């Protein structure tokens, strides 16, 4: 089982911390926006089925859940 690498696909959206909707193979961004809704709407306009949401960031190493 290969590790899934999202570093390249998320990079263009990291500076603005945009939400992205990934295609089902996680290789492309089908939609992006400041909210999950905007990302999903763009993906829907492109006809992408079952996209997966994640928010892009330039550095995930410092994340500590506050909960």
């Amino acid at each position, binding site marked *: *089982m*290969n*590790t*899934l*690498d*999202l*570093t390249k696909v*998320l*990079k263009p959206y*990291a500076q603005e*911390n945009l*939400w992205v909707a990934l295609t089902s193979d996680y290789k492309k961004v089908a939609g992006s926006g400041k*909210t*999950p*809704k905007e990302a*999903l709407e763009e993906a829907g306009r492109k006809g992408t089925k*079952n*996209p*997966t*949401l*994640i*928010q*892009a*960031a*330039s*550095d*995930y*190493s*410092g*994340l*500590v*859940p*506050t*909960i």
Partner: protein
Amino acid sequence: MQFPYILLPGRTDKVKTPIVPIGVSFGGRKYQIMCLLDSGADRSYLSEDFASVLGIEEVENTEALTMTGITGDTITTYFHKVSFTIGGHSNEEWFGFGKLGMPFGILGRTFFAHYIICFDERRQRVEFKESRS
């Protein structure tokens, strides 16, 4: 079912993270979102922005819990019962919706109760088995 760890951008190197895609549905709407498997969290959480995507209009019209995390910050979250699907298996879970400030959802130990979960650091993957009482 098994999921590989996911490589995410980091300050000096790539970060290998146990996040998994889950389908979340409410009122006929279903969407997929990446969620962190967090054994340190008592409960499960999603961004309040995701509540509007699911069509949960009155997010605050339910049980509210103010949580204090390890950083000392507090967050008020509002819990709604939603259906989820992971690897073809479906169940229900109470998710707290709030201003998480996290780039993905959080699956805490209430979610863990549905499965036996093994973190295999050497192979960089996480394995789920159904938990039967």
